[in-house]
């Protein structure tokens, strides 16, 4: 039963792919009669899903705008708090950077490359490569998180806690917010990876892969930005 549905999805997606640019006809708010025979799609499958693949891309851009806004406002708080903390009541202290952060940065940069390669592999329908690269990216992401955790442990070892001074507070808050967002990306990757294992790369799934890749790059750039802000940016 399940297989049938999956095949049907893939078929529908493929058929409708040709007219992907067209906007989908909706029901004008008129639901089909419950239990009526005019339900044209398999359960759980709305036609808009098939016809409007670009909605995932648009949704991701919009979502990234809001995440960007979150970090922009935290940056403005960071800048203001730093200028206050470097004034006559000096409480803004330098952070000794845990060296593991160089490694995590490198890991994340490499993961961006692997996920990009995965996306291209999928486009050329090289599923074996794709599967392998997605799994590698997921592992790199997990390794990044482990590295970030290690950086926390190192700082705690130095006696630098979240309440020690505003610079350390920002470090812990910004890194954890980034980690939470990245964790979302890893969950998405795991879903994609599992789907890849089971060879269920439908058209919708391809869109999911595309937007996950976008998101992953965004997380990568965001981390580099935070890294620079936290350790290299001075007023």
């Amino acid at each position, binding site marked *: 039963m399940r297989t049938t549905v999956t095949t049907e999805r893939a078929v529908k997606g493929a058929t409708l792919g040709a007219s992907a640019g067209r906007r989908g006809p*909706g029901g*004008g708010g008129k639901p089909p009669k419950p239990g009526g025979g005019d339900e044209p799609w398999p359960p759980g499958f709305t036609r808009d899903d098939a016809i409007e693949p670009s909605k995932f891309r648009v949704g991701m851009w919009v979502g990234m705008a809001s995440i960007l806004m979150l970090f922009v406002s935290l940056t403005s708080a960071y800048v203001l708090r730093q200028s206050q903390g470097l004034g006559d009541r000096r409480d803004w202290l330098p952070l000794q950077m845990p060296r593991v952060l160089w490694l995590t940065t490198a890991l994340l940069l490499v993961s961006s490359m692997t996920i990009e390669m995965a996306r291209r592999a999928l486009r050329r329908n090289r599923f074996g490569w794709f599967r392998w690269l997605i799994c590698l990216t997921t592992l790199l992401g997990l390794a990044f998180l482990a590295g970030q955790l290690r950086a926390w442990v190192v700082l705690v070892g130095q006696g630098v806690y*979240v309440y020690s001074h*505003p610079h350390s507070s920002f470090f812990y*808050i910004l890194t954890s917010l980034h980690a939470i967002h990245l964790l979302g990306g890893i969950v998405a990757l795991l879903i994609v990876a599992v789907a890849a294992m089971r060879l269920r790369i439908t058209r919708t799934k391809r869109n999911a892969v595309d937007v996950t890749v976008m998101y992953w790059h965004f997380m990568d750039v965001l981390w580099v930005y935070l890294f620079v802000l936290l350790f290299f940016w001075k007023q």
Partner: protein
Amino acid sequence: MADVIEPLTEDARHGPKRFLRRYVFSTDHRVIGIQYWLLALASVFIGMALSVLMRLQLGWPGGHFAVARFLFPQAAPSGGISPDLYLSLVTMHGTIMIFFVLTTAPQSGFGNLFLPAQIGARAMAFPVLNMLSFWLTFLSLLVLLAAFFVSAPNVIGPIAGWTMYPPLTALGEITGPGQGTGVVLWLLSISIFCVASLLGSINFITTVLRMRAPGMTPWRLPLTCWAWFTGACIALLSFPVLLAAGILLLADHLVGSHFFIPASEYVNGQLMTADASGSPILWQHLFWFFGHPEVYLAILPGMGLTSHLLSTFARKPVFGYRAMVAATVGIGLLGFLIWGHHMFASGMSPYASAAFSLLTLVIGVPSAVKTFNWLGTIWRGRLRLTTPMLFSLGFVSLFVSGGLTGLFLGQAAIDIPLHDTYFVVAHFHLIMGVAAVFALFAGTYFWFPKMFGRMMSERLGRLHFVLTFAGVYATFMPMYLMGIAGAPRRYAFHYNPATGEGLQYLAGLVPVTRFVSYAAFVTVAAQFLFVFNLLWSYWRGPRAAANPWQATTLEWSDVATAPVVHRGAYEFSVPGAARDFRMQDEPTASPSGQ
């Protein structure tokens, strides 16, 4: 007859599981819309109950009220409303009304219900995300309401107002009752709410951008859709800022960081911080960068709906449709540049105040354009004074009475004596509180046939309108005078005639305060007419026709097939047409006009 909202059948299972999928954890935008609408309806009554207690205490300070004992047996065991309880009532009233009523109902509620239908989409872009938004909002409300029960014994929440200014809220219970658990719950609730709103706005924006029916060009969108779209953009860019501020304040509160806590804090005989240089003003900047766009988020859907209904019930096209769109978008953009006008008295640089002041008066222009066009829309129309139309006309009246006084408050020099007085209370209650609620009433009366398949009682609706319209004016107009007289807001009482306590220069305020309280009670009582009307009409109302108001937009379309849009949203009384309205998807032999 019109369709009762019948969720899309997603699976054919029967029994309780099916009920859960269809009505509780539904991904159908109409069910979610009704869930939001019900959540807001419940919230508005909680918020109103709190305001009744506040008006009792203000009118008769020190009195004992059975209703207070009944509602809060723990916080008001003798029925007396202590200053502590009063201030926590203020906080919870403001928070519930602004977040769970004014942000939730017009945008998420009506938006979910009718945005997809009006643009000819079958569903929202991301149905599962949509469900998640609603349940996060619900969770957020539960977390906030938990503060009723777990704050200190004599309060029902933080003592901070909805603005949560630190350091009062950053140091914990030492600064007063409710500042411990109460503040933490408030911050958690609002952070969850931010996430929910963000997910919701992603959905709205994508739906409008990507899911429109063929032919639904931007210039053919109903003005409600423009308002929802602009509102979603506002939410998308402003809620992250509140989330950031909330996270930082939560950190100050829970883990002892010093983002907003300044040096040498000495509270209750205890030196809290020696060397730190946190900035309380930073919170105000972050909060109002969110807070000001937020008030536009509350009112924009109301503006859109008012334009929509005035046109429908005047049987005339919206006067200056494109100017209305421009004004909507203009308000959305300018709304991000004027947050500083909440901070004229905060010690901000006078140069910054001057800039914010000028921009604030400039944002009056798009609002004036809207008012002009509303009058233009009904001018020489054939007005059908149905209940939704009455509430829309009431909206225009209230919007002007509340909005024009922004010309005083926007000027830094005049704002100084009026800042944080009842003048401000009157201003924002009229423009973003009551006006927006009038739009909610209008929307409910208008769309009820679409929501539940029956018409609401016109006779009860008219009575409800007259009492509410007179009641809110009697409640809030005198507050302008109280503010001019210098009555500060967030006071448990101003002058107690029985004991002579309080501010002596406000001794003359007592009769006015009592008048306001009586007016508020009448207004609150009138709302039970509305509830009765809802319940009665739900079961007994006359069955609605497919398009009972003879409106033009797609949610009323009778056509069962996929809609194709041929014309703009407000084709009323077109010369030479057979009927005095043409629906957007009505095929036409003649070349379609815009």
